């Protein structure tokens, strides 16, 4: 293990985990470069310090603070990727991906297909989001369904520091463009350390907690709430299986369907607004494959269909709360 890495026994948070993954990738492959606003150490290594120390270690040529120019950032990443580099481009907040949608959707996602496989775009787009900091309507959206709806791009949303590490490494060394979603309000939550250098395969869900009565499917921040609700219900003798998707697209329907085929009840939970969301796609697949076997309608819990609100009283209720997750699970059991 690299001397600068955190010892494997020590808990760490997602900021540290992503930093370690970037460090590991840059150390092992000179084609890995970082682009993004404020990411070099002169600019404090990112607004929350995810890239701290990396420009000092690998130089300002490979770790570049960019202008506030999202199209140019993603365009530069795409161009470099086409000729064999593995750029990690940070779009500071997920809402800012909207300014670079042409580059992401029309180019990064499609160039492999449109070129008949002659070129491909192994970029990783790091972006953070999530309600909880009172940032209001333009800084906290979960927009993963837009990208999951686009052929050619992978969407990854880790739920813990260790997963963030292993999935980040997998994204960087994957040959397709990956959008990597980091939840900002839980950045500082500690968790068990990852195994150094070990990638977590993309497109494979993780059964985080085995259960027999109902399956709850989630990803990113809301996984922790699902686990907490599952623990609570277990005290009443209800056995909840928690499936953490890890990768939203391509989605591991095999694991989801196998789990639901056993429990015959399912609830999908995500922080994104419920309407037209990832949950709808999962529910449709469950219905297509397991219609006759279900004991209850598939439940969905998502944010209210409103922009992310500012007032704390609204923001707290806007996202799926543990109470709403619990109610949705109970509804499948009655």
């Amino acid at each position: 293990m690299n001397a600068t890495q955190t010892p494997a026994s020590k808990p760490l948070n997602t900021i540290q985990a992503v930093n370690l993954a970037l460090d590991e990738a840059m150390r092992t492959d000179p084609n890995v470069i970082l682009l993004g606003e404020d990411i070099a150490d002169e600019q404090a290594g990112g607004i929350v310090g995810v890239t701290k120390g990396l420009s000092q270690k690998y130089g300002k040529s490979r770790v570049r603070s960019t202008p506030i120019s999202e199209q140019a950032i993603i365009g530069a990443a795409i161009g470099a990727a086409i000729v064999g580099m593995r750029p990690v481009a940070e779009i500071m907040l997920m809402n800012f991906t909207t300014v670079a949608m042409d580059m992401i959707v029309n180019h990064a996602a499609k160039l492999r297909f449109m070129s008949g496989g002659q070129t491909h775009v192994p970029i990783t787009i790091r972006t953070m989001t999530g309600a909880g900091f009172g940032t209001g309507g333009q800084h906290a959206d979960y927009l993963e369904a837009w990208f999951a709806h686009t052929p050619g791009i992978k969407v990854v949303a880790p739920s813990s520091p260790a997963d963030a590490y292993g999935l980040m490494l997998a994204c960087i060394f994957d040959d397709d463009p990956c959008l990597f979603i980091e939840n900002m309000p839980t950045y500082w939550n500690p968790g068990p350390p990852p195994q150094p250098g070990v990638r977590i395969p993309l497109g494979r869900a993780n059964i985080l907690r085995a259960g027999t009565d109902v399956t709850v499917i989630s990803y990113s921040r809301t996984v922790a709430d699902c686990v907490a609700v599952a623990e609570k219900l277990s005290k009443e003798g209800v056995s909840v299986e928690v499936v953490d998707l890890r990768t939203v697209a391509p989605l591991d329907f095999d694991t989801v369907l196998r789990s639901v085929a056993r429990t015959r009840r399912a609830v999908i939970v995500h922080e994104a607004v419920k309407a037209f969301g990832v949950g709808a796609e999962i529910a449709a697949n469950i219905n297509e494959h397991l219609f006759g076997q279900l004991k209850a309608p598939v439940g969905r819990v998502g944010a209210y269909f409103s922009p992310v609100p500012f007032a704390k009283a609204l923001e707290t209720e806007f996202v799926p709360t543990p109470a709403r997750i619990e109610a949705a699970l109970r509804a499948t059991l009655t």
Partner: protein
Amino acid sequence: MSEVALPSREVLVDIYRRMTLIKQNDERFIAVIKSGQIVAPYYSPRGQEAIPSALSVSLTDQDYICTIYRGFHDMLAKGVPVRMLWAEVAGRTTGTCKGKGGPMHITHPQSGVMVTTGIVGSSMPIANGLALAAQIRGEKRVAVAYFGDGASNIGAFHESLNMAAVWKLPVVFVCQNNGYGEHTRYEVATSAARISDRAAGYQIPGVTVDGNDPLAMYHVARQAIDRARSGEGPTLIEAKTFRFQGHVFGDADSYMLKGEKEAAMARDPVPAYRKWLIKQGHATEASLARLEEAISVEISAAVEFALSSPVPDISELRRDVFAQEMLS
């Protein structure tokens, strides 16, 4: 023609060869579309031949270009094989992109044609990335971004010029100003008197050149390419020209000023350059006729090759979406 030191006779004739290939290819393409043998949207580059022809003689296969939907001239000048271009446009497996890209997305990395985009303004940010890779790796490659006058009003133009200037990227931005963005005249949509004036905002050289004058274009391009290759950073070239076939082939040109197109066609840069080459003794009527005949034969073979090639199997819909083939 401009009064500066001439390139070699070989280069002068090579420029004409590329211009003739583009012109003949265009004429044949229009004939084949009209015959119904190929159905495809066509954004003709006729009238703009001199720009990439005079530029590409200063590039190698190691150098990159990103071009746009009106880009057959840029691709052919850069060296995309004619038969693969035709097969792609015919939607055949033998095309550059196995028939999956079509005329607006021709890609041919062997000749340095890295991206062709159908989105106005999108060639520039990606050309920056190609240049960035060369810079980081210490390679002497240059990236050229082609785009039209309309694209200089898109945000990505400004983002790209700024980033390229700040990082001194080895990139050349080539605006082919043909006077119209789709159906809208330059003056109606663009505040700058000259697009090259916009370079001043990014502290990079900006130069306007008669894009229909191969020698003037050659010299301006050469300077920008040398500058990029030697690490001095980007240049914005505005090459003035005119398109002979409107926005998309078949449009009625009703939005154009009366007589404007006819006047431009009367100054067709390809025969004008041919005449000059002969008059100055750089080529003979017979040598150019031979060259033209050879190109005509090559295009005929390309059309035949394209039309006799197989169409893609439906399984291609699952390939090249991701690295791994999709199962359903």
